[in-house]
């Protein structure tokens, strides 16, 4: 295998000798990244592989050569190189830039563009700039419809890794215009759901969405976007949206799922970094690492957008006083939280509040519907995706899943209330539960179910639990009884609170 590679690169060297030496000097980082593979082949091989990749990259950049007999074979070889590199180590931001342009500019055929897009896996980050350029090509529209769909799905899957999200947000209008296309519509809705900020909600957009809904009927992705709009600016939407409707986008991560997990694991430090902010102590958070050890719950990252509360017109106070919102990365102590509590902006990825006790405090005080809605949406998506008894192959990630469940339970305990998404997840996965996997976490989730009627709970919860109860060991029976006792305690405590307090738990989910 290695001998063959050498022969190929020898052939390559003869054809493109001049540029090769430049490339080796330019990008020395590749040899390091290949060293990480831990193969036993000598270093020479790495350079050859690195050369092959560089050559492949340049080939794609230059565009198709017109009349070459063996065009198909060379193309296939280059594609294979790119794919191998991408899936092994991921691509650097500059390379993603080049390949994105290549894929979306329509120079090559549809099949090649699809393969390129499918192997666009970042090593660390994706720069917002390359996304901007890609969207520009997207507008030009030289690529085929299916390529466009794949590109949008790729954006949704890689959303967490995009740097400088404000640049992507400034292209909101372009994305919005693509809602017309029936094929693209659900994926664009998902992207917009992730991208929307309060400032993006404008009356003409709301009208457009309502028109689309009238034309296409009740589609759950349109409804999801409308409900998000409604909670940012409730006054603009008068249409009533059904309560307790689970907002569900088809998960489009499936193509890149295993690779994403690898990327997240690659980027974590050698020792697990716990981001639980201790009250009272200012912990220096390492800025370079962007992902927690659990790799499912993201780090709180403040979106650097404008202010949170939009005003119709600027007032003198705005001009005179400094009303900038407080960036979350600097939030280390309770004292800081108190000082800036009126202008704190919540992170893009709501899941990151689960690990931070300060942010949990904030959420507890704010009682804003949109905040809770976003958190519940993130929870329901994540639980759906990470639940290990749905995915046969992912049983190795059992530990991650138990850690995630632990964090959720801690957050619920902290806030002393249950999350509706967890409840829905429980009802959905209880029939499939075998009674042993993540048992203590599952039973704790049972004890945090919010208060509701027995007649509602009986078919959803108690019948399935009865199935497990009567056919399990004594230990399980006792654990279940214990968690039911805790459930009762929680309900009693909740009900014994002051009745005058307004029931804010009727969140529309």
């Amino acid at each position, binding site marked *: 295998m290695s001998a063959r590679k050498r022969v190929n690169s020898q052939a390559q060297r003869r054809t493109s000798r001049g540029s090769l030496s430049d490339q080796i000097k330019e990008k020395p980082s590749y040899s390091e990244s290949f060293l990480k593979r831990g193969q036993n082949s000598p270093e020479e091989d790495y350079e050859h592989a690195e050369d092959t990749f560089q050559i492949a990259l340049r080939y794609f950049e230059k565009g198709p050569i017109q009349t070459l007999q063996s065009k198909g074979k060379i193309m296939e070889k280059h594609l294979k190189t790119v794919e191998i590199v991408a899936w092994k180590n991921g691509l650097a931001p500059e390379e993603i830039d080049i390949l994105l342009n290549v894929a979306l500019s329509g120079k090559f055929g549809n099949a090649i563009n699809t393969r390129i897009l499918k192997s666009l896996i970042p090593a660390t980050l994706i720069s917002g700039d390359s996304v*901007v*350029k890609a*969207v*520009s*090509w997207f*507008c*030009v*529209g030289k690529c085929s419809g299916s390529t466009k769909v794949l590109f949008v799905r790729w954006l949704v899957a890689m959303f967490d890794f995009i740097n400088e999200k404000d*640049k992507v*947000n*400034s*292209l*909101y*209008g*372009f994305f919005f*215009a693509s809602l017309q296309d029936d094929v693209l519509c659900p994926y664009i809705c998902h992207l917009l759901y992730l991208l929307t900020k309060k*400032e*993006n909600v404008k009356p*003409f957009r709301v009208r457009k969405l309502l028109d689309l809904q009238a034309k296409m009927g009740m589609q759950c992705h349109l409804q999801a976007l409308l409900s998000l709009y409604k909670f940012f600016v409730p006054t603009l939407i008068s249409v009533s949206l059904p309560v307790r409707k689970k907002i569900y986008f088809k998960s489009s991560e499936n193509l890149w799922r295993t690779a994403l997990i690898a990327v997240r694991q690659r980027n974590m430090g050698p020792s697990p970094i716990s981001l639980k902010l201790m009250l009272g102590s200012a912990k220096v958070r390492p800025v370079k690492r962007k992902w927690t050890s659990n790799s499912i719950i993201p780090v709180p990252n403040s979106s650097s957008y*404008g*202010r949170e509360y*939009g*005003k*119709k*017109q*600027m*007032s*003198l*106070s705005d001009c*005179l*006083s400094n009303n900038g919102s407080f960036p979350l990365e600097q939030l280390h102590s309770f004292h800081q939280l108190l000082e800036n*509590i*009126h202008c704190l902006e919540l992170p893009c990825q709501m899941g990151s509040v689960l690990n931070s006790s300060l942010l949990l*405090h904030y959420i*507890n*005080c*704010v*009682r804003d519907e949109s905040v809770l809605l976003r958190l519940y949406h993130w929870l329901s998506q994540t639980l759906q995706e990470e639940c290990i008894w749905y995915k046969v192959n992912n049983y190795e990630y059992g530990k991650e899943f138990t850690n995630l469940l632990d964090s959720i339970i801690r957050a619920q305990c902290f*806030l*002393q209330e249950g999350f509706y998404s967890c409840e829905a997840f429980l009802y959905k996965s209880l029939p499939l539960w075998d009674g042993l996997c993540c048992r203590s976490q599952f039973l704790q989730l049972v004890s945090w179910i919010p208060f509701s009627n027995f007649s509602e709970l009986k078919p959803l919860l108690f019948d399935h639990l009865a199935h497990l109860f009567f056919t399990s060991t004594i230990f399980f029976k006792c654990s279940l009884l214990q968690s039911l006792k805790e459930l009762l*305690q929680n309900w009693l*405590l*909740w009900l*014994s*609170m*002051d009745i005058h*307090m307004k029931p804010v738990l009727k969140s529309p989910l």
Partner: protein
Amino acid sequence: MEKQPTDSEGEGEEGGQPQEANKEDHMTLLLRLRAQTKQQLLEYKSMVDANEEKTPEQIMQEEQIKAKIEGLENEVEEAKTAFEMKNLALDRMQLSAALKNNLEKIDTKTSLLMDDMKHVLELNKLIMTSQQESWDLEEKLLDIRKKRLPELKQASESKLLEIQTEKNKQKDDLDNMENSDKIKAIRQNLQREIQITTVIQNVFQNLLLGSKANWAENPALKKTVLQLEKNLTMI
């Protein structure tokens, strides 16, 4: 199509009754088999009784049948519980009578039975103290939660509202200064400009989209495009 039955070796025993009692005492095995046989006999008897009953003449509705079944099940449950309690009481009486008889016959100092009983008593004491401790701790925890929960929810919310109203008051004070005419005129002009620019923003966006031009290639154009979404009222 059936596969040959796979016989098990439960607990490493071969075949049916073990001659050498490996893990199970001979006596225990006999008692267990007795209980088994009793249960199986009960099942057969109940089937025989059920088959002897006549089916009722009228056809009952399914709902009625279900309701009746539920009622009967409840009755059975109650009867079973009562039976189990009575059995338990009877067993206890028998046990204590047997113990009493046994104790009268043996030497109280060296017997194995006395040692067992002492051990049981010790364990019971231990269990009771642990249970008491855990109940006390649970009580304390519940008290703390009872105190904390309303504080957590109501107090924090009201505090935040207070902070926000304070800030708003400050803003209102500033706003009151705005009523001078000059500022009003300035503001009107500003508004008009903002509106015009917003319209231009949107028109330009749509123009670009319609023209299918690659705006990222021109750096100046790209810079302009990235500004198009900016909400001008914020600056």
